[in-house]
């Protein structure tokens, strides 16, 4: 009898929980965490900060920085939406994600009076389309998506995405594309003469068919593991981000990076302060520190990413300023676009084609 009572009670309790759960809101981001004034949690990409930078910041401000890293914008957003990002006062999302975070009201509007050196940004970064007038974000680095290849194996050098299709015989299972539906479809769309951000189902289908054609050449869809394999010669060509390409080229001068001639994507990573930031003052201190030309130049050189800051660019050694994989000529950039947010139903379409493409 007693046992039965207990069972009844617990079922009642459970169904009560389930019922009261009926009206909950998915991924409601709230501020939950308090941190000390001299502690700044930042959420950034691997390779964007190092000990030297954090140490220099500490010497100057007495604020200790703790950096966590994410490997994709979506991973970062999911963590915030799951409620586990409350400690971060500063985040490094990319352009389209900045837009999305603004739309979802996750970001604090920045007080430009508290930020020095905004006038030294290159004109193209003064009012980016994802965040007009940089109201919520400060661009910190930029780059492109392209192809890294072995110049001794592939001669003449690839110049465009079409190279992959025209040389399928030589590339069988020796090429990788990014593990990223938007970039892979975008590049193919661009090659076909459409927009990187196409929302037209017919165009997306055409790109899918083109990619199915290419499948025998593609060893993997892979954003990281291609590095050791292209260095060892197991891969002949890999689709990658310019900053990553620059790193492997430093290890092996036979490798080269090309920004495809029919156009590609330009990405910008920016600094933002989430609404839930527990330590806004320290976040501003970090932004101001990163805006300083000497700091931006040194960190850009050491960690090999391109700076959107004119004053910092001027302080770079000439060998870096003329590095075309970091700073491609304007002619190549003209045809490129930045990734734009797309409506959810079009995203679903990309998603479905991607599942089909990757399940052979």
């Amino acid at each position, binding site marked *: 009898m007693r046992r039965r009572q207990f069972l009844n009670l617990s079922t009642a309790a459970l169904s009560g929980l389930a019922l009261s*759960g009926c009206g909950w809101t998915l991924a409601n981001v709230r501020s939950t965490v308090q941190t000390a004034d001299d502690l700044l949690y930042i959420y950034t990409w691997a390779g964007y900060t190092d000990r030297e930078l954090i140490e220099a910041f500490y010497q100057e401000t007495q604020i200790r920085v703790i950096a966590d890293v994410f490997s994709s914008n979506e991973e970062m957003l999911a963590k915030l939406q799951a409620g586990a990002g409350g400690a971060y006062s500063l985040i490094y999302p990319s352009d389209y994600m900045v837009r999305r975070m603004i739309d979802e009201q996750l970001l604090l509007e920045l007080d430009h009076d508290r930020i020095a050196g905004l006038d030294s940004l290159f004109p193209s970064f003064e009012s980016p389309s994802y965040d007009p007038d940089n109201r919520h974000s400060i661009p910190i680095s930029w780059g492109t998506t392209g192809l890294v290849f072995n110049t001794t194996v592939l001669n003449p050098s690839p110049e465009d995405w079409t190279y992959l299709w025209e040389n399928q015989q030589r590339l069988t299972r020796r090429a990788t594309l990014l593990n990223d*539906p938007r970039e892979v479809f975008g590049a193919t769309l661009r090659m076909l003469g459409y927009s990187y951000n196409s929302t037209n189902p017919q165009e997306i289908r055409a790109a899918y068919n083109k990619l199915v054609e290419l*499948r025998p050449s*593609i060893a*993997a*869809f892979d954003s990281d593991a291609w590095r050791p394999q292209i260095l060892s010669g*197991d891969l002949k060509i890999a689709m990658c981000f310019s900053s990553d390409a620059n790193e492997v080229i430093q290890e092996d001068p036979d490798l080269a990076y090309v920004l495809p001639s029919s156009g590609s994507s330009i990405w910008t990573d920016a600094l933002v302060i989430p609404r839930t930031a527990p330590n806004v003052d320290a976040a501003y201190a970090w932004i101001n520190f990163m805006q300083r030309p000497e700091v931006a130049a040194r960190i850009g050189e050491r960690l090999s990413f391109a700076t959107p800051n004119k004053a910092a660019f001027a302080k770079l050694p000439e060998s870096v300023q003329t590095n075309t994989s970091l700073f491609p000529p304007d002619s190549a950039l003209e045809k490129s676009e930045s990734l734009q947010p797309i409506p959810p139903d079009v*995203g679903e379409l990309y998603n479905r084609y991607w599942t089909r493409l990757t399940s052979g």
Partner: protein
Amino acid sequence: MSVSPPPSETSQSPNSELAWGTRWLGVTGLLAPAGLWLLLLLVLPTLVIFQLSLVPNIRPGDVVIPSGIENYLRALEPGNLGVVLRSLKLAIGTTFLCLILGFPVAYWIALLAPQRWRNLLLLGFVLPLWTSSLLRTYAWIAILRPTGVLNSLLGIVGIPGLDLLNRPPAVLVGMSYSFLPYMVLILYSSLEKLDRQLLEASADLGATPLQTFWKITVPQALPGIAAGSLLVFITSLGDFIDPELLGGASSMTVARLIYNQFLGQTPNWGFGSALSMVLIFAVSVAIALLLKYGDSSATQR
């Protein structure tokens, strides 16, 4: 994994009400921590996932109101069903490989190896689990890639190289390597209890070693084989890292598909939850089969 039958209703002892009360307290004390743990971290989350799976096209910020089974219908579309089937095939293949590789080893350690080595040998099998699985998978990339360790060795012997990396065989290799220790440990604990007198009796009565193996050893090890296979099957069905890093362009598995629904570019938590429920269902069926067949043979002894 040791699956014990649920505690059966013990017959009411003739003791007084007080003794019954203290015993009930003892049972509560023993079960409450694990029960609470299961309730908070398994039952409740599963209910939340189930609830989410009934909301088509949910977006972050939406209110969760179950309204239909579209997500399940979508999970059963040919493309997605194909992904589930591929995962099942890989998991079954891995289980089979682990059994074939693990049984002789466990048999040797349990019955033939000198007593004083046994613990050391078992430790040796568990040792790889002390490093990160991500690291071990990267090591397999270095071994299996076209100019990797394996092909260099084959080249020395004069055998033409194998192109394994970024193909399903590489996933099988990676997963069976990852999960072999579980299989060996479980088979070992099952074979260790083997009644050797039965083996001797069988030989005395004129059975060949092969007959003895199939008729005496295997039946006694059956619960271990079932438990080990099930553990490997379930773990490899949910494995994410090996297919992602070793499988190449055409290696979408259900675990990766679920990942894409939560952390991909177009998150669809409802659809991801439906896929998770399908996976949970598949695993539950496997466990039910084990309870029915695996353990009944254990209780017969």
